[in-house]
């Protein structure tokens, strides 16, 4: 059964800290891995990582895909209170009966 695991499930840091969020997956037909930031109802897309694009960076956020280890990390440097959110990892698994597999999310709280 396809699955996505994220760790930690919850994290509390102070402004200025650097955090690393982990995502590992087991899917039979991997196409891409996506990171989202969810503050309210609609997650905001952050990055998509594929075999041809295994490292992405945008401002203080960066992400790497390790296809050998079947995992990805999301780094946030110099955290701000506005980074407080649930960070979701999802894998696009192009199997019959399965499209996206979402992880449970990491709840990040950044304290002032």
């Amino acid at each position, binding site marked *: 059964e396809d699955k996505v695991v994220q760790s930690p499930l919850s994290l509390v840091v102070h402004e200025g800290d650097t955090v690393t969020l982990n995502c590992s997956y087991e899917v039979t037909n991997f196409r891409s891995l996506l990171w989202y930031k969810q503050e309210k109802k609609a997650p905001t897309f952050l990055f998509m990582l594929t075999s041809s694009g295994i490292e992405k960076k945008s401002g203080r956020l960066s992400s790497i895909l390790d296809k050998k280890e079947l995992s990805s990390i999301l780094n946030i440097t110099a955290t701000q209170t506005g980074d407080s959110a649930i960070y979701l990892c999802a894998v696009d698994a192009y199997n019959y009966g*399965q499209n996206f597999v979402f992880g449970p999310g990491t709840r990040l709280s950044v304290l002032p």
Partner: protein
Amino acid sequence: SAVISQKPSRDICQRGTSLTIQCQVDSQVTMMFWYRQQPGQSLTLIATANQGSEATYESGFVIDKFPISRPNLTFSTLTVSNMSPEDSSIYLCSVEGTGSDYGYTFGSGTRLTVV
């Protein structure tokens, strides 16, 4: 956390027809959310479905195009009506956890292609 069964997982439909997507949750939930995922883009919230009341639609989405049913606390349907190729997308439902189960759980999605 809740488990969602979403059907169908994919379909290829003719333009002008309608498709109804179902989401069944293994526990009672107050709100269910319907999203659209287009390649490389954010999940776009279509509407929030509360049991016993009409769904609340986000800007750009209307009930005539995306009618939603929410007959009980464990089930909801989204219909994509009078489809055009622009409706080709992945549609997902999700529910919000409660208490210690704080996160959102998503269905596996319906991959719709309109030809």
